[in-house]
């Protein structure tokens, strides 16, 4: 279809090495290893309870008690371990995520929600804001402009001053993706971006992802249950079940993989 040719993905951007996450006696993720290369769109699939969101939470350091290592290519083009990085510093590395349930501020306008995504990039401090120094005003204006550009790109510019509360589900999902773009991301981690969208919106999202990759140079890692969507859009797919690695490869390879079929459909008798 209109699938863009895969960019020359050679260097890994994110690497998981034998990552294990325990909740008490339960191993939610068990010695999982895979990598995401620069410029790729990678899907993480698995039946319910497979540990996909746990993997995301470990990557973004919401859970910091995992074993093994998660490494990410930093600004100096070196792979560094994310272990010990604070949750709110993860965005500095260029990793931004969305959530399974939309987590926006409902009683702020759309553009203000986007500005939350640029939180770390503001250089002026509280006192400069209180005094509204020219520098602070200039900075605010700059990021507002940036937010408007992002909204334009997402085709929701006309809603910029509307409250988030009351916007349709599809629009809220778009706002969440737009918010991630404000943080100048290298890797966007999306937790079920297509859940609850209608067919038209899913198609739109697909197109959007290719544009995202080309215009903003981002790598995308996503969890999704809509298999049609995943197989269409992803360059590679990683399948896990009960926290264990099953297979990773192109969508075609995953579709024909025995272990994946068993995980989804049960064993053949």
């Amino acid at each position: 279809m209109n699938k863009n040719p895969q960019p020359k993905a050679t260097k890994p951007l994110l690497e998981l090495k034998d990552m294990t996450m325990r909740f008490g006696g339960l191993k939610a993720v068990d010695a999982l290893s895979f990598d995401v290369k620069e410029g790729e769109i990678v899907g993480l699939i698995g039946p319910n309870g497979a540990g996909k969101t746990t993997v995301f939470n470990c990557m973004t350091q919401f859970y910091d008690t995992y074993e093994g290592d998660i490494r990410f290519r930093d600004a100096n083009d070196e792979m560094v371990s994310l272990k010990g990085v604070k949750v709110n510093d993860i965005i500095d590395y260029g990793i931004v995520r969305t959530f399974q349930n939309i987590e926006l501020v409902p009683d702020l306008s759309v553009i203000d929600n986007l500005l939350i995504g640029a939180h770390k990039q503001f250089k002026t401090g509280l006192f400069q804001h209180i005094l509204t120094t020219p520098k602070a005003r200039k900075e605010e204006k700059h990021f507002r402009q940036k937010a408007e550009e992002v909204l334009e790109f997402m085709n929701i510019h006309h809603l910029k001053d509307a409250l988030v509360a009351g916007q349709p589900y599809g629009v809220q999902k778009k706002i969440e993706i737009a918010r991630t773009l404000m943080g100048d991301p290298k890797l966007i981690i999306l937790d079920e971006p297509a859940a609850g969208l209608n067919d038209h919106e899913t198609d739109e999202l697909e197109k959007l992802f290719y544009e995202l990759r080309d215009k903003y140079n981002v790598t995308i890692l996503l969890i999704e249950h809509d298999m049609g969507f995943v197989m269409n859009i992803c360059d590679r797919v990683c399948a896990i079940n009960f926290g264990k690695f099953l297979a990773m490869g192109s969508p075609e390879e995953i579709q024909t993989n025995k272990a994946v079929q068993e995980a989804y459909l049960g064993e053949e008798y």
Partner: protein
Amino acid sequence: MTKTNKTNLPKELYEKFKANKPLHFLLFGIGLAIMLLAPYYDFIPGGRNTNGFVAPAIYFTVAALGLNLLLGYGGLISLATSAFIGVGALGMGYFMLFQEFSFFLSLGLTILISLGLGLLVGLFSLKVSGIYLTIGTLFFATILENIFRSVLPMSTTESFREITFFGNFVIDTSKSYTQLRTGEPQYDRYIALLIMVAVLVLSMIVIYNIIKSRTGRAFMAMSRSANAAAAMGVNIAKYRIIAFMTASLFATLAGVLYAIYGTSVEKNIWTLELSLFILAVVIVGGMRSIFGTFIGALVIFTVPNLYINEYLRTFSSFLENRFGINWQPVGFAPVFAGLLIIVVVLYYPRGLIKLFYDARILLLKLYGLIRNRLAKGGATDE
């Protein structure tokens, strides 16, 4: 080209004015200052003491603005507001009367103490949240209250005779508005009121600038979804502490204003009751509304004392004369505040400030109706 520019100019100016919120606060302050001149010119019949009733609304608005930031934006409830107001009032009293420090040194020390205490509450808030945090602040307030009562070396009420700000700038707020014998106006209390109005306007502008900046957005993000806020780089711990320190600073400023205006500082009135009244100010006036906070303070602190108590006294004397029933309307203010909270929460959950929006919409509707009628009438005439 020039023509269109000309016609658009008033509208442009209006839009500019509409967007410039700090200017609104400034104009509001000037208007309030002019209104506070009323007792000198007998605008309000028999209302010599009106200012005495409006003053609490002014200084408690400052405290309520801090609480509004904490509650409306940060999503954190504090029941320690009155204790922090107490820190302001008693700190000024202690440093100025017992240590004989200058006004500004006392102010600086009081603010430092309040920021330290605010930091303590903020640090506590990192460990607990929700209802437990509320209970924690309540006990924090109780501890402070008891420190005021038993540790501070002051008697229950200490009076300032006059406050020297600097050099010759001295105000003696114990003077009444006019000299009794000659009827000459005395402006000392008015100057104190002007200082209060200035602090109020400044607080409004500061709060507005905070909530419109990234700090305000971080507060909102933190209270609505802590996870998303953290993922976007908001340091939750930092902003919780900032929220509590700002709220305690504003409460302390309210206490300082109380000390300036009240001519005396009391030890025993910084109780939970006052904290709840200030919470009521925020809820009745309108959460996350700056003007709403002032309206709430007027309704909670001024209206009961200025009007309701007067009417009740009339009613009670009527009862006495007509039916011989002896009923004294003492302490009615809490009843009024309680009833008001119930009514507001039921019918105006966004606060009394919404009354204005509703009134405006109603007026616009009426205007549209009348215009339609007129247009129709014009059509039939032709």
